[in-house]
């Protein structure tokens, strides 16, 4: 049976209806093993065109009519790199506006390690999410598991950084200050999400829940990044609950909106930009 399993690796290389060239030991095995021989014969029995591969003329013409009725030239979607840069530009513009509004009072109170540690994670997470979203906009352009893992890793990484780089002490103002930070962050995340959605909808979303979570997380990171500069309450419990809560809440909201969208709008995404 081990030899049969080794034959599977040769079957992976089979293409064009022909058998892959086998080394002598594998050829001898296939020759002698009825199961492997029949499997090889079965897998190369695909015909080029047989009657069952012809579509009913009525169905064919119905599809053609529906397509041709609305056929207009469209501009192909921008390359993934350009789209990722678009996400990053939106992020930078919104974060800059948020910092101008909320101030940068936290910078003076932070050590270099704390600023650089969280700042590097925010920058890396944002870049990775922008790259992932730009690929999710195109069918057959991404790994579903990789994109889901990225959302989890970015959220968990930030949470761990806040919990490990900042001192563990609680103050009496935990709730009131926390609610203020969370409200401010979510107020920034909401318009950010709207801007990102406008860009995301240019593509075709095959996994709207996953794309929604990634978009929500990216929008939440705008709020978290602004608070990273502006918040003066630099304690681990405050950061881990209220600051981390912003990207996590917006990611969850994005996931739920995406899930809802997958039920209500199966042909998700915009039709391309029509050219004159």
């Amino acid at each position, binding site marked *: 049976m081990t030899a049969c*399993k080794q034959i599977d690796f040769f079957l992976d290389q089979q*293409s064009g209806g022909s058998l892959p060239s086998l080394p002598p030991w594998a050829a001898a095995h296939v020759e002698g093993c009825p199961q492997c021989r029949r499997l090889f014969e079965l897998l190369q029995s695909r015909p080029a065109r*047989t009657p069952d591969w012809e*579509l009913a003329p009525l169905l064919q013409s119905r599809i053609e009519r529906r397509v041709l009725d609305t056929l207009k030239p469209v*501009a*192909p979607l921008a390359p993934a790199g350009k789209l990722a840069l678009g996400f990053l530009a939106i992020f930078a513009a919104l974060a800059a506006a948020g910092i101008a509004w909320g101030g940068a009072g936290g910078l003076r109170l932070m050590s270099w390690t704390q600023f650089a540690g969280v700042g590097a994670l925010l920058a890396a997470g944002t870049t990775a999410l922008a790259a992932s979203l730009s690929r999710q906009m195109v069918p057959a352009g991404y*790994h579903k598991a990789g994109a889901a893992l990225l959302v989890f890793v970015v959220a968990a990484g930030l949470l761990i950084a806040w919990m490990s780089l900042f001192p563990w002490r609680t103050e009496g103002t935990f709730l009131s200050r926390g609610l203020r930070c969370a409200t401010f962050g979510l107020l920034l995340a909401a318009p950010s999400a709207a801007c990102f959605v406008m860009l995301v909808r240019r593509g*075709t979303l095959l996994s709207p829940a996953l794309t929604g979570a990634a978009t929500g997380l990216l929008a939440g990171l705008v709020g978290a990044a602004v608070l990273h500069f502006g918040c003066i309450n630099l304690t681990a419990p405050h950061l881990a609950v209220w600051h981390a809560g912003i990207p996590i809440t917006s990611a969850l909201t994005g996931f739920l909106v995406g899930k809802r969208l997958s039920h209500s709008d199966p042909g998700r995404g915009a039709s391309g930009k029509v050219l004159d």
Partner: protein
Amino acid sequence: MLAQATPVPYLQEQGLGDLMARYQRAEEAAAVELIRRVSPMLYRFMARPEYTQGYVEDLLQECWLRIHKARHTYRPGEPALPWILAIARNTRVDSYRQLRRIHSHEKVLEDFHELVGPAGPAEISHLDLYRQIDALPESQREVLFMLKVSGMSLQEVARATSSTVGAVKQRAHRAYGKLRGWLSASQRDLAT
């Protein structure tokens, strides 16, 4: 020695990328040619023994509407078949979810395989390949269909299924194992 089959052209070797690019430029002839070349394969991909013929035809039309709406997301120069099959797969998954919610089937197509031609009982034909592939679990079926019926590479199948090459290989190898088991069982049946 094993008989070497005459290599048959697979779809992605037939200039689908070029047709897609011309389809984006709204060339009617390219759109019609693309529909003619790809639809039979998509029909096969959508069809399941438990689906009615009308339902599969509806799925195919829905798939084409989605392809039409998403045509701007195809990037010229890239392989077109993984892009098309990713949309087709998504259409099928959505319909499956919808069916599961509704639980209403028009009429079960019992003789699905008979509609597409007879098969010789003792010899392996292409129909046996479809029949065997159709009997596999869904995740293995779609991988084997893309690899062995559409002729896509492991990398292209991984892209079409939003998966990794390792995961595609694993599903394909499980499918090979099942097919071996069925083939030896059918051989025993023939012998007795």
